[in-house]
């Protein structure tokens, strides 16, 4: 229920929300959990396996129980009610273990940002604030990140004072002071969730969640911060630890510090009459604060023989009974706590105390998750019965409760020291004065006891992992089955694998295992801490790399024309290439047949700008290319062009393209579209790492040039019209040469090469002029634009292979019927040695052939396999090869295919069968060159 006053909530404003169908109200500053408690809602979830009622257990992100489904403004699964800031119009419901995804797309924006700092401080509790303050005082670049909406950490939930003012006030003032400094960034609502190599940390900032439906659409809802920090201070605080006893999962059982936070920070009393079960003095502060806030504290039950004198005295002052040397053996109640059974540690007598609230504190576990993720090792500290940071492997240190320093003055001093050290270590020279630590009252404490498990005969009601419904009995079954490692126990019981990743239960589980096996907890350790520290939405991690921005779309200088003229596009690597240009009423087949006919009978043009282009310059350029291509390039004459193939050292075809000799010391190499970057990298690798003495420089000029392929018997005439100054006759401009000329009024390099078998020219102009050239060509009214599909048909008719389509990384040039491109003269080139390996010498390798289906109408699907028999035997059926390319050819008046076939070069004329669906299609093997094998057409 809500207290009359107090708390850091704005009582002047009322927020309306719904939970499990009921209307409730709360205030700004509330979390969903505090608002539910204020409204007296006890059960907030149902347990996953056993279907038991569960209530709010903690007050922060470590919450194991109160996992809810957000339904509105937009469905979001499994958020902890303790971290959901209340907003108007929130609709949520309780869950039984599984969340629900929205059926439609998420309209919100997400983004990421890179940040750099000298000192990253994680956590803005007293230790973190002190650290940031000390670091900032040196002028260092500081980032302070905290997952709460306001800084202060534990101070927000206590009545402690710092430097003589209430802790929360001090925190707010300190944060404001920090924010005034130009090189300090304070990130609120920001969870650092991963700690990676070289002090790379990632955090997620929740920027608009708390605004509900009022969140502005143009602001990213969540932002991932990618932070490189020179030094890191982890001031992440500590999580309170539960104790296992019967019924410890009932609503009403709550961590002591959480109850105190609800009372102090949220002005909510989580119950009326409380029993406190604790084995450390710190929890007494919770008892005292609750008592002062109006909770009837029936008793404090402490397994230690005695509590600290100071806290004991304070209890006495308020008339609260202290049952030292006692334990809680059970929480009882129907659906929530109604009574608590208490027994002396030494003897059996049980007494029962009426209460609706049972506050538990088995001690505190420093939040070592990020430290462990950083590669730091942990050490079991016997005095406080928990794991603390030990040796670090990166530039990081923990401070305050995160290091096991729990008293406030210690936290402040620890943070101050860590911040100052981090700042000075991160900068070359720092000449600033050390700042003094803020002051707080020292409270003497008695030694805590690491108390885990209340002994019993039956452990089926002692829960360790509330969210995964794992009991001590389950753990004992695992150890009983022979398991010895906490990792095995985790996987056998599922303890620690839920939404909370065992934040409150992990060490408790280890302790139970240790006890069962009779080994020290220190030896057993815990399971591995992994990122993310708190669950992070997929969308936040995807950021803006989605949709059109998912992967760059690369376009040529002519792209706008292709779009405007109805091209359909094919993705080739990152490029968009025109696939074909359907006219109204045309399907792909009709369009491609038309485009092919234009190229074979008239004039057609293609945008070939995507081919990779590399300038190879230097006195040794020829020799360099000789080493990489299978054929000889150094003998190429200036003004001429040669086709070449590159292999990997294993002898398999890697890329192909043309090489033109621009000058004695200057070649221009073209690569396939998809391989442009890979080929340049490949060349640089050989040049820099193997042959650094070769005097060669490589420069990518792919986008410098727009390239138009002008193809067809009429292409000469069209070119002549556009380039009056260029002699285009066969003798003036022979095949495989190039010329410089003005085409359409712009300077161009024109190459006479052909990938179609027809007379063709490739016109290269700067990409600025590409559109201009293309438009001029189209404006002649004589030229049909064609796309990649037509290009594929034309080249396949000629038997020109496409790397990646007719090859798959297991094909040599010889397999492609291109022994002619493999130099016999050169002593060596990359790949040569592999041609004489046993496997590459086989005569029954798969080789490129043509296939003619006996029925000239039948089009073989690409990917179809070939068999030798007219009926299929039982599987496995021996396969001879497969169809790599298959088209309907206007020029041939029939269908045809290219295939890689075992021993194919010796099979010309043979009949094979292609299983297509349920039929076996008879095909005849032929040469892979089907169109104009004499090469009569290339000169027009």
């Amino acid at each position: 229920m809500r207290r009359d006053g107090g708390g850091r909530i704005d009582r002047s404003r009322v927020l309306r929300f719904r939970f499990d169908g009921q209307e409730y109200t709360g205030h700004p500053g509330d979390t969903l959990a505090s608002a539910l408690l204020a409204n007296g809602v006890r059960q907030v979830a149902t347990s996953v396996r056993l279907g038991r009622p569960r209530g709010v257990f903690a007050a922060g992100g470590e919450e194991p129980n109160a996992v809810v489904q957000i339904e509105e403004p937009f469905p979001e699964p499994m958020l902890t009610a303790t971290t959901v800031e209340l907003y108007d119009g929130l609709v949520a419901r309780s869950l039984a273990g599984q969340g629900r995804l929205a059926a439609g797309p998420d309209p919100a924006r997400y983004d990421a940002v890179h940040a750099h700092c000298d000192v990253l401080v994680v956590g803005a509790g007293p230790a973190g604030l002190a650290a940031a303050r000390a670091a900032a005082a040196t002028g260092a670049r500081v980032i302070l990140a905290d997952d709460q909406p306001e800084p202060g950490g534990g101070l927000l939930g206590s009545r402690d004072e710092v430097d003589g003012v209430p802790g929360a006030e001090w925190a707010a003032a300190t944060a404001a002071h920090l924010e005034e400094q130009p090189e300090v960034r304070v990130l609120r609502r920001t969870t650092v969730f991963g700690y990676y190599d070289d002090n790379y940390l990632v955090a997620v900032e929740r920027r608009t969640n708390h605004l509900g439906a009022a969140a502005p659409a143009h602001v990213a809802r969540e932002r991932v911060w990618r932070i490189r920090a020179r030094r890191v201070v982890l001031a992440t605080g500590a999580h309170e630890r539960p104790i296992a006893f019967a019924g410890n999962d009932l609503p009403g059982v709550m961590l002591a510090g959480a109850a105190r936070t609800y009372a102090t920070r949220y002005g909510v009393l989580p119950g009326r009459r409380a029993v406190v079960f604790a084995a450390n003095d710190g929890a007494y502060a919770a008892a005292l604060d609750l008592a002062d806030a109006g909770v009837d504290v029936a008793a404090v039950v402490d397994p230690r023989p005695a509590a600290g004198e100071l806290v004991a005295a304070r209890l006495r002052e308020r008339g609260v009974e202290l049952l030292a040397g006692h334990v809680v053996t059970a929480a009882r109640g129907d659906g929530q706590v109604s009574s608590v059974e208490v027994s002396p540690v030494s003897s059996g007598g049980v007494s029962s105390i009426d209460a609706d609230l049972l506050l538990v504190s088995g001690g505190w576990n420093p939040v070592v998750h990020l430290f462990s993720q950083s590669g730091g090792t942990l050490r079991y500290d016997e005095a406080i019965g928990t794991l603390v940071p030990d040796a670090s492997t990166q530039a990081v240190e923990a401070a305050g409760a995160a290091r096991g320093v729990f008293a406030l003055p210690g936290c402040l001093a620890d943070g101050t020291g860590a911040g100052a050290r981090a700042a000075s270590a991160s900068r070359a020279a720092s000449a600033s004065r050390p700042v003094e630590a803020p002051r707080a009252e020292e409270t003497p404490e008695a030694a805590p006891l690491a108390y885990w498990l209340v002994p019993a005969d039956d452990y089926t009601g002692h829960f360790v992992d509330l969210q995964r419904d794992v009991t001590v009995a389950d753990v004992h079954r695992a150890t009983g089955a022979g398991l010895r490692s906490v990792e095995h126990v985790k996987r056998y019981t599922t303890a620690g694998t839920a939404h909370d990743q065992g934040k409150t239960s992990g060490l408790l589980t280890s302790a139970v295992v240790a006890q069962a096996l009779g080994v020290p907890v220190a030896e057993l350790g815990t399971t591995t801490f992994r990122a993310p520290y708190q669950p992070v939405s997929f969308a936040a991690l995807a950021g803006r790399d989605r949709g059109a921005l998912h992967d760059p779309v690369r376009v040529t200088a002519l792209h706008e024309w292709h779009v405007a003229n109805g091209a359909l596009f094919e993705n080739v690597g990152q490029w968009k290439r025109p696939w074909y240009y359907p006219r109204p009423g045309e399907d792909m087949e009709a369009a491609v047949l038309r485009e092919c006919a234009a190229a074979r009978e008239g004039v057609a043009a293609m945008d070939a700008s995507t081919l990779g282009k590399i300038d190879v310059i230097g006195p040794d350029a020829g020799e360099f290319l000789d080493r990489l291509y299978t054929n000889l390039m150094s003998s190429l004459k200036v003004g001429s062009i040669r086709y070449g193939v590159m292999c990997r050292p294993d002898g398999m075809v890697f890329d192909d393209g043309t090489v033109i000799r621009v000058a004695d010391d200057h070649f221009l190499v073209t690569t396939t579209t998809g391989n442009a970057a890979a080929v340049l990298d490949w060349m640089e690798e050989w040049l820099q790492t193997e042959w650094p003495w070769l005097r060669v420089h490589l420069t990518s000029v792919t986008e410098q040039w727009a390239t138009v392929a002008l193809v067809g018997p009429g292409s000469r005439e069209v070119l002549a019209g556009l380039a009056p100054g260029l002699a285009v006759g066969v003798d003036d401009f022979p095949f495989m040469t190039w010329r410089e000329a003005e085409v359409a009024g712009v300077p161009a390099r024109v190459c006479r090469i052909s990938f179609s078998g027809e007379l063709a020219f490739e016109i290269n102009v700067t990409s600025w002029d590409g559109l201009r050239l293309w438009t001029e060509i189209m404006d002649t009214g004589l030229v049909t634009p064609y796309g990649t599909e037509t290009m594929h048909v034309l080249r396949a008719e000629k038997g020109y292979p496409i790397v990646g389509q007719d090859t798959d990384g297991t094909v040599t040039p010889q397999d492609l019927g291109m022994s002619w491109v493999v130099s016999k003269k050169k002593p060596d080139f990359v790949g040569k040695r592999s041609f004489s390996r046993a496997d590459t010498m086989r005569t029954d390798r798969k080789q490129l052939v043509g296939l003619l289906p006996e029925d000239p109408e039948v089009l073989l699907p690409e990917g179809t396999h070939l068999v030798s028999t007219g009926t299929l035997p039982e599987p496995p059926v021996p396969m001879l090869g497969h169809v790599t390319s298959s088209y309907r050819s206007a020029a041939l008046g029939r269908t045809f295919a290219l295939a890689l076939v075992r021993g194919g070069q010796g099979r010309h004329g043979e009949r094979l069968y292609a299983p297509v669906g349920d039929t076996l299609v008879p095909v005849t093997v032929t040469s892979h060159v089907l169109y104009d094998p004499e090469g009569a057409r290339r000169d027009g």
Partner: protein
Amino acid sequence: MLLIPCPWCGPREEAEFHYGGQAHVAYPEDPAALSDEEWARYLFFRDNPKGVFAERWSHSAGCRRWFNALRDTATNQIHGVYRVGEPRPVAS
């Protein structure tokens, strides 16, 4: 994400680099003189130590230079970088 100190550009994000595997595997002087076994070793066999590894990186999104690094594959710690042609430093 590693922060890799390019010998020219200084520390840059791992994503800017291209990994090149083991360093100091020279292309054989005369491949034709090698047995199939020897050639196979060159093609396919690379050290794969757990510990300090001399490896190649190319700063492909930066200065496009290949260089070598000594990195501990058990910890990811980079002990040093050196340029192609420079001798492998003694690991600290």
